[in-house]
């Protein structure tokens, strides 16, 4: 079952890989050595949920290689990792057919504050503190 991230929610979608350029990137290939320029979909694998190499590969593709296409996670994907995956730049997920999609969406909403910047749009807490601090100063000025 393929899930696509739209507006920070996961929806079931029908894959249309045949009409796209798809690259499967192995975990032992450095993401910056892959030529992803003309690729629509890069697929990264989680051989077990304990193997976190694809998180780094994903961030390198997004933040260093400038990959803007669909970044797909396959393999052992469990609910409690989905937020980390989204934060590292994944946008679609090949999951087991019995997966509870509602549970995955609930997991995406479990946190709303993040300490560190990553490959998503979340503004790290320190930046929001500064903004909050500045607004507070303005109010008391």
């Amino acid at each position, binding site marked *: 079952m393929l899930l696509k991230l739209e507006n920070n929610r996961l929806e079931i979608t029908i894959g249309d890989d045949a009409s796209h350029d798809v690259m499967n990137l192995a975990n032992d290939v450095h993401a910056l050595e892959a030529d992803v320029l003309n690729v629509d979909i890069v697929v990264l694998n989680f051989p077990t949920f304990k193997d976190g190499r694809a998180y780094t590969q994903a961030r390198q593709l997004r933040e260093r290689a400038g990959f803007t296409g669909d970044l797909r996670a396959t393999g052992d994907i469990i609910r409690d990792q989905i937020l980390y995956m989204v934060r590292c730049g994944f946008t679609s997920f090949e999951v087991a057919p019995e997966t509870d999609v509602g549970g995955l969406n609930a997991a995406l909403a479990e946190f709303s504050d993040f300490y560190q910047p990553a490959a998503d749009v979340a503004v790290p*807490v320190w930046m929001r503190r500064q903004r909050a601090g500045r607004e507070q100063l303005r109010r008391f000025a």
Partner: protein
Amino acid sequence: MYRYDEFDARIVHDRVSQFKGQVQRRLTGDLTEDQFKPLRLMNGVYLQLHAYMLRVAIPYGTLSSGQLRKLAFIADRYDKGFGHITTRQNIQFNWPALVDIPEILDHLAEVEMHAIQTSGNCIRNVTTDHFAGATADEIEDPRVWCEVIRQWSTFHPEFTFLPRKFKIAVTASAQDRAAVRVHDIGLHLVKNLAGETGFEVYVGGGLGRTPYVGEVIRSFLPSEHLLSYLEAILRVYNLQGRRDNLYKARIKILVNALGMDQFRDLVEAEWLNARDSSVDVPQEEVDRINAYFAPPPFENLPKAYDQTSATQDNPDFARWLRHNVSAHKQSGYAIVTVSLKSPEMAPGDITSTQMKRVADLAGDYSFDEIRTTHEQNLVLPHVRQQDLFVLWQKLSEQDLATANAGLVSDIIACPGLDYCNLANTRSIPVANRIQERFFSPEKQEEIGELKIKISGCINACGHHHVGHIGILGVDKKGEEFYQITLGGSAAEDASIGEIVGRGLSTDEVVDSIERLVAYYLQSRQSDERFVDTYKRLGSEPFKEALYAA
């Protein structure tokens, strides 16, 4: 000390809710034990021999009185009235029920505490000098940077499923009380020739099966680039660290396999691209955190308080002053080490009654502040010298004034086979028997600094590799044996102890250590410590003494 703002509070609160859901899914069977395991571990919940164990984070070993009272409450209500201070400055409860753990986390959140990343293959609780903010020999308070690292590493999306656990320690003193060179990353705050503050960065240290002393990867990292540099190191490790063998998965193995030069090149290449990203927090945020670590309102006191009248009639107090009281940066103040190494107790254990008492005493005498140490003791960091005598009396009433900081009975020991399902042998009874053998305070004082560290298996949680005398429990055909290592150190002279010979039986081990100590006493020159004499004379004569029976 650091206080939560709305963001910190919400993150911890959201984490409690998330873990409640995970426990619920485990209890209903939605999660298998195999799936639940890494999730509970990431929240400090272990399944031990007899029960679940909960490890609560004490970030960089700093506690308020209110927090310690809450820990006492948890010990009373959910444990058997005990807590156990760990070598990562955390506290463990050995008897909570799984169903109660979400509730315990609620209680902890009320006092700005949690169990986040106290286990699992992620970045663990950052540790530091337990005298931070009180000692005169530090460049600045290292806890500011520890808090910066704590925030950055909390729920780091990229580094939560590393090949193996990852430990970072920070010190700002020449005298290393934080064992930074036996950490995955050790950070030593230094000043360069221009007077700017930065870090000497060590990488690849660690104990376990294959002990290494960390090497310098960068001699000066401007402090504003700390996080981007850490991220570069972690990134190289996450991609290239071994995942095929649990025992070869730590960063030390990778650094050793590549060699420091190649590892450094990889890290610097990563860093080149990351150093100007928004990973590094701006000075404004460092200043915000720094403000929380402003010194407490010290009084203006004369340089030294005359203890003569009290010490004259109380040789025990005088001895405690000599060993458990250290110099403070503020005139008229002192740093007090509260020993948790009474022979009556497992090393690092503290009762709920003692916790409450220490919380009260910290309120009365140390600006509400307590520290935990990686040597499994407590510290009251800011005590007026004129209060030392009355504080000593009050600590004595609770069996908390053992005058043995740094001495032979101040032993680090892992929980061993009494609690841990990885252990080969018991550790606590060996520690207690050594403490009994060297019970005499006069004898201990004569021996001077001697660090004994005991691990009940090769995972080395008791840091035996870096004990002046290290004791490692091994199982031989169902019988407990103890292998002795000599000459290790976790301090600024960090080194891995040498194995001197065959393992000793449970009956032999204490006698053998006594012979080692006797040989040292007859061989030492002037005020040489045990480890110095060992380094001067080499292992041969000590080996003879050890097996002389």
